[in-house]
């Protein structure tokens, strides 16, 4: 089981859930921070895309332009959906960008975990003590997945701070909002724990491969099953455990401190002012003192101020220029790799689709239970089907016919080696079975045209080549070892 394929999804769900929670709690404080419901789809989508892209494709040589375009692809539709209003766009865009960046970090870390062999360096596999390395690779006080732990705990702490703030300000969430918050909290907890457990498994699998440990094939499945149980128990704990039972709270501590301070410190009594002596600004408005005319000192100060502004501006511009220069310096070079990146993405998507189709095909090919009719309406009386005979005449053209011939000839001792071209194999076939016949040449010439030519074979030509191939196939089948020339 490839654990890595599900980890970016977990990272994306966790990030989106955390940002969702933070935004929901923030919206309790101010209506300005309210976000529309459709934004959640963007949060989840951007997090998933960012995590998968970072885990599988992002490298230090990926152009910054690609990253900017990637982010812009998410922000652009949001801008349109909020009605092209910059003020309304700012908060959703900020949330989406944060979500995208958080997920990107997780994806990058997954990519880094996979390269642990580079970190181990030139240690021989036999000397890799992965039990130790998995725990203390970065130091004695560091967990194996320090990044993920810090990320998960920091995100959870941020949400907790917002939730506590809302709790203490007595901003009550109720009804659908409360349900949303609980669901999002549960999703964040479950996906966060699953991400941590899955990432640890992924790291160990990488180390096991490096150390060439004999791992039980059932381990990933059992790991994920047990992890699911642990996550479920953790959710039960989160939802069902008693809360708010502490007799000592921040309020009681604050009151206690206030009482202690009020008893222990006697403040001097302030003189009471007579009500008529209350200070007041005169309404008549005394004339302001006249300012002297600007002298030389003022000019110097002004000049110094301008100089300071100019210096600061110059430093800022220089810094900006430096950043732009540094960004664009390697950018052109990186952009050359863009087609390769596109090909990689295409190949990965194609592979994923093929895997999904293969999985569906496997599901489809599961045999029915004994006694159950395979064909509806036919009951137990199945029509006799032709058995899957590998030796039956090919029905898929010249290339399939060559495979059949090679398989048959292999059984007779003439194996189609990887080092051979089809034409060389044809020559060997001719020498073995058909020393004086042209049928082999005809078939293999036809095969080369079918395989390598742009035009291919016409209908009549294909029939002729197939006939030759079938003749070869039959001849090979009938061949006995002792009739070399026969």
């Amino acid at each position, binding site marked *: 089981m490839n654990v890595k394929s599900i980890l970016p999804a977990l990272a994306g769900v966790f990030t989106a859930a955390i940002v969702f929670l933070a935004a929901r709690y923030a919206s309790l404080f101010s209506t300005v921070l309210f976000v529309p419901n459709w934004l959640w789809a963007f949060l989840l989508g951007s997090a998933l895309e960012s995590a998968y892209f970072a885990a599988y494709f992002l490298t230090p040589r990926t152009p910054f332009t690609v990253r900017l375009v990637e982010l812009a692809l998410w922000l652009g539709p949001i801008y349109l959906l909020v009605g092209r209003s910059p003020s309304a766009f700012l908060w959703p865009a900020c949330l989406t960008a944060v979500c995208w960046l958080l997920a990107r970090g997780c994806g990058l870390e997954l990519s880094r975990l996979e390269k642990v062999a580079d970190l181990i360096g030139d240690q021989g*596999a*036999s000397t890799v003590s992965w*039990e130790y390395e*998995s*725990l203390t690779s970065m130091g004695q*006080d560091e*967990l*194996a*997945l320090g990044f993920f*732990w810090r990320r998960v*705990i920091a995100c*959870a*702490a941020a*949400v*907790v701070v917002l*939730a*506590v703030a809302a*709790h*203490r300000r007595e901003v009550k969430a109720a009804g659908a909002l409360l349900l949303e918050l609980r669901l999002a*909290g549960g999703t964040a*907890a479950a996906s966060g*724990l699953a991400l*941590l*457990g899955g990432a*640890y*498994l992924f*790291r*160990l699998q990488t180390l*096991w491969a490096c*150390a*060439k*440990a*004999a*791992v*039980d094939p*059932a*381990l990933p499945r*059992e*790991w994920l099953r*047990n*992890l699911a149980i*642990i996550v479920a128990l*953790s959710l039960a*704990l*989160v939802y069902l*455990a008693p*809360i*708010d039972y*502490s007799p*000592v*709270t*921040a309020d009681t*501590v604050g009151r206690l401190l206030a009482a202690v301070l009020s008893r222990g410190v006697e403040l001097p009594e302030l003189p009471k002012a007579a009500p008529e002596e209350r200070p007041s600004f005169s309404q008549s408005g005394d004339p302001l003192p006249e300012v002297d005319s600007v002298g030389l000192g003022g000019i110097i100060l002004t000049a110094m101020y301008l100089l300071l502004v100019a210096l600061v501006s110059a430093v800022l511009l220089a810094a900006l220029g430096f950043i732009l220069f540094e960004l664009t310096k390697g950018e052109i070079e990186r952009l050359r790799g863009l087609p390769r990146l596109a090909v990689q993405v295409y190949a990965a998507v194609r592979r994923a689709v093929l895997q999904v189709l293969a999985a569906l095909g496997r599901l489809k090919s599961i045999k029915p239970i004994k006694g159950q009719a395979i064909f509806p309406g036919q009951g137990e009386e199945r029509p006799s089907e032709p058995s899957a005979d590998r030796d039956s005449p090919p029905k898929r053209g010249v290339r399939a016919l060559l495979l059949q011939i090679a398989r048959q000839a292999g059984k007779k001792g003439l194996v189609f080696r990887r080092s051979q071209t089809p034409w060389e194999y044809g020559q060997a076939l001719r020498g073995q079975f058909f020393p004086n016949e042209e049928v082999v040449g005809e078939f293999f010439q036809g095969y080369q045209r079918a395989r390598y030519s742009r035009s291919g074979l016409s209908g009549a030509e294909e029939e002729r080549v197939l006939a030759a191939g079938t003749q070869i196939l039959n001849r090979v089948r009938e061949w006995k070892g002792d009739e070399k020339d026969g």
Partner: protein
Amino acid sequence: MLTWKILTLCCVFLALLWQGRAAYSLAYLMVVLFGAAPLLLARSGNRLMVSRGSRERFLFPGDEASVSVALRNPTLLPFAWVSVQDSVPTGLVKGTRRARPVVALGSRQVKEVAFPLVARERGVYRLGPLRVAAGDFFGISTCHLQVPAEETVVVYPHVRPLPELGLPSRLSFGSLKALERINPDPARLAGVRGYQAGDPLRTIHWPATARTQELQVKQFDHTVTANCLLLLDLYEGDYPPDHFFPSVERAVSTAASLAAHIIQRGEACGLAANAVLSEYWPERTDIVHETGYVQFQPRQGTQQLSAILLALAGVQPQNHVDFYSLLAESRKQLRGASILLWVVPEDTPQLLDAAAGFLREGQRVLIFAVERVLHGELLAAPHGSALQLFAVSPGGDLPL
């Protein structure tokens, strides 16, 4: 871990102060993950039961075997992974690296892991202790155990047919035809004859009687059993330093092959060697093992062969008892043996002098030189001579 535990305490403290489900939930999870889980893992790890399938294993060179170790988790806490590493000596490791199996062990689950072995060299090996590591699902804690479960693996010496050692395949030892026909040997049928009054009924040959319709009795050869005693010289000073180990192994293999040959012919064979036994030698009561000497009384049967092969698997050369001391020490045994088979590196003149003393006492001495032959003329001694010399040379002639 200390940082995370402090962080957990802070979370708990703040949750108690601030209140609210979110704060409590985070505190609960932190306590479970960084407080309770490591403790539970340590306790469950200590209760993990690791046992071996067997205590002793016997192999011949070239044999492959698999040592199984059973892991049992009697607790409810599942282990995300359990890694087992056995201390397998280099001479038994299959392939180029030691196996390091990793399994997942659920609650109350039993699993078995296997370590493949291949017997390369003669010896008595000790497997173990087992080093077990188990971990949780989040990389927070790992527990390590060392289980003192040990297993002895005995790799017997090579037992070869005599022709492979360059020896005649029809070497005759042990029972000899007696000149005085007193003791018929029921294992050696010589023929049948007609029944005569006084013949014991148990000697009647019933198939022949049925065929001839007259009572027939079996006739046996009359033999005397001549006990054989193998004397193996493993004094370090007698072997050339430049190819010490091959010579020693050849001597041990020769002794094992001779013992097998003799005992499989139904004769009695004993062993005496000036050797020390391996430190991992399994405790046996039927072997006399004093410092520098290994002695077996001559006996018949496969049990004796098994005991001799076991002893030869564990013998090691030593440097304080020479072969002549062994002859002196084994005098009591030597008196009871008729044929002495000396497996030595070379036939020195002193050795022949010592052999002459035994010849005078009526014993036969067969010397098997495994390293070099100094008295080539003795190689041509006729079959049945009291003193014979054999050159043990698997794969080629010994230098003369």
